């Protein structure tokens, strides 16, 4: 029961000769392919996710949030930015000053979908507010006139009293 070096050179041959065990043709190359395919499948799900250690992750996250917050805050508080025409709302806002001077030109610029809002805004800003202002002015004039009238009457009363006293 001794094996020779020659027998050890071909292990498959040895098993076939001594034990009668055989394998399918070209088995090892097919098996190698199967194993490599399975190993590749194991490798594939391991997509690298960029993880940072908490010691770095938290300060970076806080800086990003702070940056975003500051950007929004500065945008909302900077008048130059507010006047910058970047969207439809701001166009409308900008036009509210412009439309007073030229209603027809402005109505041509504004999209059809927003024309109703524009008209409402126009009515409020020009007619109603103006009407209220003029009403208040009339009231002021009226009140002022009452004051004048009272003072005149007072003067008259005072003068007549003096005259009466003199007389």
């Amino acid at each position, binding site marked *: *029961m001794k*094996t020779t070096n020659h027998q*050890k050179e071909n*292990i*498959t041959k*040895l*098993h076939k000769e*001594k*034990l*009668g*065990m*055989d*394998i*399918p043709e070209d*088995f*090892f190359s097919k*098996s*190698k392919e*199967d*194993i*490599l395919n*399975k*190993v590749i499948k*194991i*490798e594939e799900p391991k997509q690298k996710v960029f993880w940072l250690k908490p010691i770095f992750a938290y300060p970076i996250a806080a800086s990003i949030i702070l940056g975003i917050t500051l950007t929004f805050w500065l945008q909302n508080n900077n008048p130059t930015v507010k006047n910058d025409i970047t969207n439809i709302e701001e166009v409308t806002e900008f036009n509210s000053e412009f439309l007073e001077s030229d209603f027809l030109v402005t109505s041509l610029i504004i999209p059809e979908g927003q024309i109703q809002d524009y008209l409402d805004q126009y009515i409020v800003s020009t007619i109603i507010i103006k009407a209220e202002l003029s009403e208040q002015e009339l009231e002021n004039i009226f009140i002022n006139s009452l004051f004048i009238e009272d003072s005149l009457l007072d003067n008259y009363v005072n003068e007549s009293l003096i005259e009466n006293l003199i007389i």
Partner: protein
Amino acid sequence: MKQEVDLTKKLKNPKLKNEAFKDLLDLYQERLYWHIRKIVITHDNANDVLQETFIRIFKGITNFKEKSSLHTWMYRIAYNESIRFIEKNKKNSQVSLEEDTNHYLNTLMEDSYFNGNELQLKLQTIISKLSEKKQRVFQMKYFDDLSFREISEILNISENTLKSSYYSIVKTIEEKILISY
């Protein structure tokens, strides 16, 4: 030995791992297949266990501490996988290999890739009647050509015990073959 050390380094390097694994397959696939085949007996089972073994090797290579040689470590994985496979099947079919030596021969005869002659079947029958440990010792030494030190690392048996055990196994087999003729 140097070849194994270089291969281990490459296998532990993520950039070289896939290429090194192909080399590893070329070097050890056939040897591990036959090591497994003698334990699980049929070709189909051996093929399944071989694939599982190499997947375990691929996954575990980064944890290989190099306390033993690479091929001893791989043989141990293959051996453990084969034993796990047998234990799993034993639970399902309620058959103990050690108790029922016929199970070995029945499985062997059912395998479409066994076409042994009378002498080969006789040798298989004699091997199947050995205890499970003795079967492994004989197969690893005689067919796999592993050293006693390597077998002792795989089976966790002292080298001296292995040596005396192996020579007595060989003697027993020779006597039984002679008796049968």
